[in-house]
């Protein structure tokens, strides 16, 4: 592995811990923007000198939008929608919106080494305790940001602001220490996590961090031992020290304890906590501060001393790791329903292309959520085979199979685990799809021409390293024409050497040349109206399906001759 290609990462530990102290609700995003507009900064979990959400200028990737326009629908490549990858990405990002990870899920990598680098991280995090540890850390960091936002909002009330700041520091320190211990215990194998773990250990052991933790704990201790008593009578509020008077509710409960029957419900009324303190509470707090001057002085001093406490690499890690966490989190329900994921062997040029027990990620997500069974499929192509021609009954899973094929290549090129127990996939320079469109009336010349125009564009750009998914085109024409045009397309694809799935109703295309492999969607033999959604490698034979249906209705030749003879 070309570890030398990650200079930014090696620089990590050398960086000075002076970073953005301001971290409000948008801090994560702001941090990302600082990097994309300012000088190149290293990612903690991604290789390369540039942050991963910025396209590298030296790698042409026409189908990947720049991050500035990533939010516009028009900028999402066509194939992402056709393959239902947009749905998968929406699922992946649910709950992770704040981290702005979408560009990461759209940008395919072109370098095997980069993919290895990410697969290593996935592989580490997949080991269960570490993933949970990281999630816990991220939740804590979200709390830290929210506490700091509160501190900023009540800056005019020093007793409150200082406490929110203290709470933020306490949460942050706890999270960092826990993550450091978790990483040390997990003993990660990946270069990224090892390097970050080393940095974290150094940071946690530094004198500054230790001092901050100690002082914070001491101030916290003092404040949490504060007990006071309020007396409310008409409009007068008096604050005093607690002298251990008995709890009245407990007295009431004790009196009626002899009735040994359970109460029917909880009568406590959920009282809403207003976002910030009201002026009565503030006045009370001011008097509590008067009653306990030592604790409140210590608090003020702590805030002054530890104004900027966030370590920039820790902040960066918190964002970048969400790419991995979100993907693994999405995988979880699919895995527990019995589906498999695996790390694909990825290469620019493969003699053999395989996937075993793979599935359509978007459909599987929906089916598993509904508690339904997911059918898995395999494919295997060895030289000189490059084209999977899929035929068979309608609604038999042909499109799903085609999408699955495309999805596998996209996900593999992100460095992610892919659906299936085993996969060997080509690292593609581009993914093209040609799916049947809704009739677009603004296009002149009719649908067939439109289809052909689109195909022409694709075939002019595709290379031997591209992936092409074609789903049931030329349906607006006769069988003869479709066969002719299909043959033309496939001959060209064969010439280019493009890796291709071609879904068609034209059986004869399945045995066109030595590049084509015939795959057929299948039905239950006894009941031809039941689809198995299995797509199997076998000769195309549209008639066998028709005969089965006929038999069910007693209309086969044999049946008809017998019954007519009586």
């Amino acid at each position, binding site marked *: 592995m070309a570890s030398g290609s990650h200079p930014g990462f090696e620089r990590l530990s050398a960086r000075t811990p002076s970073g953005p102290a301001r971290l409000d609700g948008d801090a994560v995003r702001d941090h990302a923007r600082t990097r994309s507009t300012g000088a190149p900064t290293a990612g903690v979990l991604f290789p390369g000198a540039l942050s991963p959400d910025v396209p590298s200028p030296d790698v042409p990737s026409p189908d990947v939008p720049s991050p500035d326009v990533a939010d516009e629908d028009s900028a999402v490549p066509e194939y992402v929608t056709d393959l239902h990858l947009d749905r998968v990405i929406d699922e992946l990002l649910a709950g992770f919106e704040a981290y702005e990870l979408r560009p990461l899920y759209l940008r395919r990598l072109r370098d095997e080494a980069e993919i290895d680098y990410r697969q290593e991280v996935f592989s580490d995090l997949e080991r269960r305790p570490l993933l949970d540890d990281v999630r816990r850390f991220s939740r804590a960091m979200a709390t830290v940001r929210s506490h700091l936002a509160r501190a900023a909002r009540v800056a005019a009330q020093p007793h409150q602001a200082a406490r929110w700041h203290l709470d933020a520091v306490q949460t942050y320190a706890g999270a960092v220490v826990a993550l450091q211990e978790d990483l040390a215990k997990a003993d990660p194998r990946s270069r990224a996590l090892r390097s970050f773990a080393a940095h974290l250990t150094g940071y946690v052991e530094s004198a500054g961090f230790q001092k901050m933790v100690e002082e914070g704990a001491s101030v916290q201790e003092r404040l949490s031992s504060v007990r006071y008593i309020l007396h409310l009578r008409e409009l007068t509020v008096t604050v005093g020290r607690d002298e251990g008077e008995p709890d009245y509710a407990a007295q009431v409960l004790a009196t009626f304890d002899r009735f040994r029957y359970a109460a029917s419900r909880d009568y406590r*009324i959920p009282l809403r906590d207003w976002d910030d303190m009201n002026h009565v509470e503030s006045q009370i*707090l001011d008097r509590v501060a008067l009653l306990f001057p030592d604790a409140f002085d210590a608090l003020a001093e702590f805030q002054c001393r530890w104004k900027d406490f966030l370590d920039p690499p820790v902040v960066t890690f918190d964002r970048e790791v969400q790419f991995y966490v979100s993907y693994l989190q999405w995988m979880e329900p699919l895995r527990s329903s019995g589906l498999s994921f695996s790390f694909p062997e990825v290469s620019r040029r493969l003699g053999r292309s395989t996937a075993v027990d793979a599935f359509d990620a978007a459909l599987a997500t929906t089916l598993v959520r509904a508690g339904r069974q997911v059918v898995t499929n395999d494919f295997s192509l060895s030289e000189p085979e490059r084209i999977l021609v899929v035929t068979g009954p309608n609604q038999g899973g042909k499109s799903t199979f085609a999408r699955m094929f495309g999805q596998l290549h996209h996900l593999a090129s992100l460095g992610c685990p892919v659906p299936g127990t085993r996969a060997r996939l080509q690292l593609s320079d581009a993914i093209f799809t040609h799916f049947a469109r809704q009739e677009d009336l603004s296009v002149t010349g009719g649908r067939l021409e439109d289809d052909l125009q689109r195909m022409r564009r694709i075939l002019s750009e595709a290379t031997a390293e591209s992936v092409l998914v074609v789903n049931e085109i030329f349906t607006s024409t006769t069988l003869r024409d479709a066969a002719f045009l299909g043959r033309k397309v496939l001959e060209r694809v064969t010439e280019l050497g493009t890796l291709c799935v071609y879904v068609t109703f034209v059986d004869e295309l399945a045995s066109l040349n030595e590049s084509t492999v015939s795959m057929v969607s299948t039905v239950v033999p006894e009941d031809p109206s039941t689809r198995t959604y299995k797509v199997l490698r076998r000769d195309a034979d549209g008639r066998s399906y028709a005969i089965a249906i006929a038999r069910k209705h007693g209309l086969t030749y044999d049946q008809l001759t017998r019954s007519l003879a009586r």
Partner: protein
Amino acid sequence: MTVRLMTPDRDFDLASPLPPHEPELTADLGLTTLWAAMAEGDRYLWDVARVVTLRGCLDPATIRYRQEVLSDFRSHPEVARELYVISSEATVGKKRIHGMLRRTPTSTLRHSVDALKVLVGHLRRLREVAAAHDGTWHSAGARRFFATVLAQLDDGYFAQIERHLTLLRFKDGQWMSAQLAQGNRGTAYTLRVPSDVRARRQRRFRTTDHRAYAFDVHPRDEAGLEALGDLRDRATNLVANALAQSTDRIAAYFTQLRTEVAFFVACLNVERRLEAAGVPTCRPEPVGLQPAPILSARGLYDGVLALRTCGRVIGNDLHADGRTLVMITGANSGGKSTFLRSIGLSHLQLQCGMHVCAERYRASVCDGLFTHFAREEDVTMRSGRFDEELGRMSRITRQLSPHSMLLCNESFTGTSEWEGSEIARQVVRALVGHGVRVVFVTHLYDLAQSLYEQATGPTLFLRAERLDDGSRSFRILEGAPLPTSYGPDLYERMGGWLPRPRRT
């Protein structure tokens, strides 16, 4: 304080689910007639009667415990009825008080104080009843119950409740403790009872140097007043909850008393009706779960039929101890179904602690009583009758245990005799082999005869008697199956078919 009149170690739970086959059992045994007699128009008594009869207990000791309490109340029916009135009033009153819409801790507290005042009145009445009948009880259940009432509800206790009712008026304001949470916000507001010292000092604070720790909210500062109300609510929340839950618990005690006493009132009601009809009832003898079942009776009759016909019923004897299978054959309209129902009904009565409709009755308990009765042809039924029958039987078999009892009345007659017999034979053999008690009324001769010839297990064969003149005695006697079901004599009695009109 617990009630425990029905079970020594547990409260009777009216809400726990009934067996899923409850509708079949109710319809097949005609239980609504029994419940109506037990309820005498009282909806609550109906509900309790229904649940208690359908959910019998398995433990003979518990059955005897109920039988003894019932016997005590039989001697003092007015006490049972008085307890039922007090507990009904206490629970109905409580419902009305808590039917309010918008709740705050303060309003919850106010309503709870009102509810408590009412409930204290009912507690006093309960104590009076207990005091008036002290020493009259023989059963363990009644003795324990009344002793508990007298011991727990003494004068000191009522004084303690009155003290709370005074304190809860908060004449001197409210004291609440608190601590600091996130953002130094006050939390864990807890209402405190002030010491006398504290209360005195507080009065002084208002005019001296401690003024620094006090402040006033301006009477026109609406947000400030709201904030004060909010603090009060926070402090009151736990106390209001404690008091509301306490009144709940007292009400729950009365609800429990109402439920359990309702059962005895309902038993007394039905006994009165049967006595008026001139038929005997007896205290049955329960036996625990047995591998070889016990079932013997003298003068067993169908109580439901007796209630419907004001007592014109025939009693039968039954000696089925040790018999897992009882096959009943014989004349149509000969009283077979009635006899089968009387077995089912008496078993339910036995297991819930009631008196049984017989002169003498002794039986081992079963952990589930099931009925599979041939249904009237139902035109709305989508699937065929036989299909429906088999579906019903398959649902039953999924619930059976080796200690269950199954009553079959002309099962598997929705098809040909041969087919029905074959299926029935396989079902019966399998169930009896599993240990399930089966009482099977059938006119399927093929079935009865084959079981008679190759009786695999301990089987009792009974037959509806037909007198020599062809009339029925409605008596069920021991006897082997006979080849016909006496259809011919029914036919004879109605005078045969009308002659075919002669063509002219």
